[in-house]
């Protein structure tokens, strides 16, 4: 078999399908796809030369070439590029030429099969090759440029962690976006929008992999580097928290004897943790009380216990600065728990497991998905979105100019929960500031009694991002309550818009975001 660009790519095709299975699976080819591209281009030229020579000799060699009859393009969605002769002998056609035809011609299968003779079909393929080959060489050139400009090695070593993470994330986004642009002539079928309502669920078609593979591989490397950086920060914070907690444990068990003044100075020497705790000013006296009068064990802090829990919660999904702020918040909460200053109502750790990244404008639908999951119901994000769409709770429109708009109407709030057997009470958005405290009390009651509620917020205020306007729904999974006076210090939320779980939002910030959507509230419980 000739070493053509297409069979190299096909050999790299992860999930062997259709025509790819015909090609020998040489995994060593994965190692340096770029050089193979170059080689393959050379071999293409070489092949053209041989084909030209053979063509001139054709009248003399005609008797030597077996006649298999007309070529049939056996198209199926799973294996779109299977060509064979009428007698069943497979015909080896370039896979990228095939994708080029599918992506650029109108009804190419019918066009090809309609051609009267094998010679005319081969001429047709040759003609297409003459167009796809320059497109392929352009792709090779662009691929080299994209990969070299989005290499993590380009980032100077002394770059601060925050900037480094930002660059890695930007590179990751760029490599996929530019790769998709470069591969455009060979991408078939056209990508669907990021929606649960479409066949592919917004995912890439597998037929894109041959062309997109190097970009995808680079994205994976960049993503891995970003993850490593995040894990480093997480580990550092964890270490600090553990050391603080063990100090406190020492105080608890009387193993460490510290005078009040030295406790105060110890607290001051841990900036960002002790000083900024919810009741920071009163810490020394509370510590004294804690050390002297500690009798019972305290409930565990809601901070994640393992690496996987940290990842699940998506600390850095809104960028480095926001991630560090979240880590700091959680460290403070752990400290606050250990000192007996506050406790958590609800079970945000458990509910964090149900977090997903929403597609389209399905925040209201997916917040309800999380609620139903927390009640142990067997639902899927896609299934629920389809159900909401069919019932008219959720609307989605594909714009002619590209993109997708979707949303849930306010008067359909909580409908899915009701349809799935829960008791639901909806407090519609209101402009009356007087209603704020009453609704706040309702929310606190719902969290304490039923373990959560769904609320409407202004996305930009919640995400600390002026570029994100519009309303958004989130699942409140718990709240942090002061042990001193029973005041709510903040809420734990699962946010499908950012993929963040068990994010602690201080009450003031939460109220501002909630106020932006008129204190919209959906309360639910199980039917008795």
């Amino acid at each position, binding site marked *: 078999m000739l070493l053509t660009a297409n069979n190299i790519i096909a050999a790299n095709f992860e999930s062997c399908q259709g025509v790819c299975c015909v090609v020998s699976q040489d995994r060593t080819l994965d190692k340096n796809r770029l050089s193979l591209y170059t080689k393959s281009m050379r071999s293409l030229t070489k092949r053209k030369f041989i084909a030209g020579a053979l063509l001139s000799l054709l009248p003399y060699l005609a008797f030597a070439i077996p006649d298999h009859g007309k070529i049939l393009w056996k198209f199926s969605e799973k294996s779109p590029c299977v060509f064979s002769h009428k007698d069943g002998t497979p015909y080896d056609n370039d896979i990228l030429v095939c994708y080029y035809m599918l992506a650029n011609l109108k009804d190419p299968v019918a066009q090809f099969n309609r051609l009267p003779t094998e010679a005319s079909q081969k001429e047709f393929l040759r003609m297409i090759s003459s167009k796809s080959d320059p497109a392929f060489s352009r792709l090779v050139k662009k691929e080299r440029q994209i990969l070299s400009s989005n290499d993590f090695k380009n980032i100077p070593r002394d770059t601060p962690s925050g900037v480094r993470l930002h660059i890695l994330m930007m590179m990751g986004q760029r490599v996929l976006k530019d790769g998709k642009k470069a591969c455009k002539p060979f991408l078939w079928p056209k990508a669907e929008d*990021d929606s649960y309502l479409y066949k592919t669920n917004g995912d890439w078609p597998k037929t894109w992999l041959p062309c997109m593979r190097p970009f995808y591989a680079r994205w994976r490397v960049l993503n891995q580097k970003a993850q490593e950086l995040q894990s480093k920060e997480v580990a550092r914070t964890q270490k600090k928290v553990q050391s603080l907690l063990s100090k406190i444990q020492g105080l608890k068990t009387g193993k460490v004897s510290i005078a009040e003044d030295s406790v105060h100075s110890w607290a001051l020497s841990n900036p960002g943790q002790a000083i900024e705790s919810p009741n920071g000013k009163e810490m020394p006296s509370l510590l004294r009380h804690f050390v002297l009068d500690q009798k019972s064990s305290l409930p565990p802090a809601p901070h994640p216990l393992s690496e996987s829990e940290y990842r699940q919660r998506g600390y850095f999904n809104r960028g480095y600065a926001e991630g560090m702020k979240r880590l700091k918040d959680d460290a403070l909460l752990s400290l606050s728990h250990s000192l007996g200053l506050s406790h958590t109502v609800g079970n945000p750790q458990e509910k964090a497991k149900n977090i997903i990244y929403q597609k389209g*404008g399905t925040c209201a639908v997916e917040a309800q998905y999380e609620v139903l999951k927390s009640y142990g119901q067997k639902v899927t994000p896609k299934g629920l979105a389809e159900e909401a769409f069919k019932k008219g709770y959720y609307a989605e429109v594909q714009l002619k*100019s590209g993109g997708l708009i979707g*949303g849930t109407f306010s008067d359909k709030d909580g409908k899915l929960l009701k349809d799935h057997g829960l008791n639901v009470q909806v407090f519609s*958005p209101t*402009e009356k500031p007087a209603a704020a405290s009453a609704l706040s009390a309702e929310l606190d009651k719902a969290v304490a009694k039923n373990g959560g509620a769904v609320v409407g917020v202004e996305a930009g205020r919640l995400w600390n991002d002026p570029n994100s*306007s*519009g309303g958004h729904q989130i699942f409140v999974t718990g709240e942090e309550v002061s042990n001193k006076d029973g005041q709510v210090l903040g809420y734990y939320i699962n946010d499908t818009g950012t993929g963040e779980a068990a994010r602690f939002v201080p009450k003031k*910030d939460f109220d501002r975001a909630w106020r932006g959507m008129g204190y919209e509230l959906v309360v639910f419980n199980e039917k008795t």
Partner: protein
Amino acid sequence: MRKHNNSRFFFLALIFSLGACKNSGYWMDRLDKTQLSQAENKLRFGSSCSHFIPEEFARSIPIPFKIKKTGETGFKVLFYPIATESKSLSMAASPLVEGIFSLDGSIADHCVSTTDQKETVLRRFASSGISMVSYYRGKSLLYEDLEKIAPLYFSDASLNDGNLKNVQAFVQEFKLVSEPDLWPNYYHLSPDFWNWIKQNGQSLPGPPPLR
């Protein structure tokens, strides 16, 4: 002499930096307290409009208008969807709902659908790189200035220096926090208002009107 200038500069810088210390929460609270913002919320969450507007729609800045024949005055606001292109990129689509309200109750709150418009996808819906504090500071000051200049526009009053400063500030803040791709739509909400702004020495730069 130079020393004196430097110290004065330092003093001013200190004053300004102290002023800038207010966080975005302060400006959000201040914005939410404006009469205009509260009237806008009344429209958004009121029974006449809530069934028109999905949760996820964003809201534009209100623009004053007046109907010369009837003498009616009020504000118009646009509601537009956020379109999703990918997990990491959002963009605004052209407004689908137009809301009308007034501060004195002279016009009943209502919303009209604008679906007959040509479909447009807007890629910029806030000034790029703007911080949270600058955005909410600009927006709350914009609403406060708008509350001051709208009555002047409604009554065709002649403007003194103080009022002119308010008009100038309004335009500067508008340029900072409004959605640049929506400027043609803003113009068409109330051309008479923008002409009045122009007569007072200010203008809204940007692309030519769409409609």
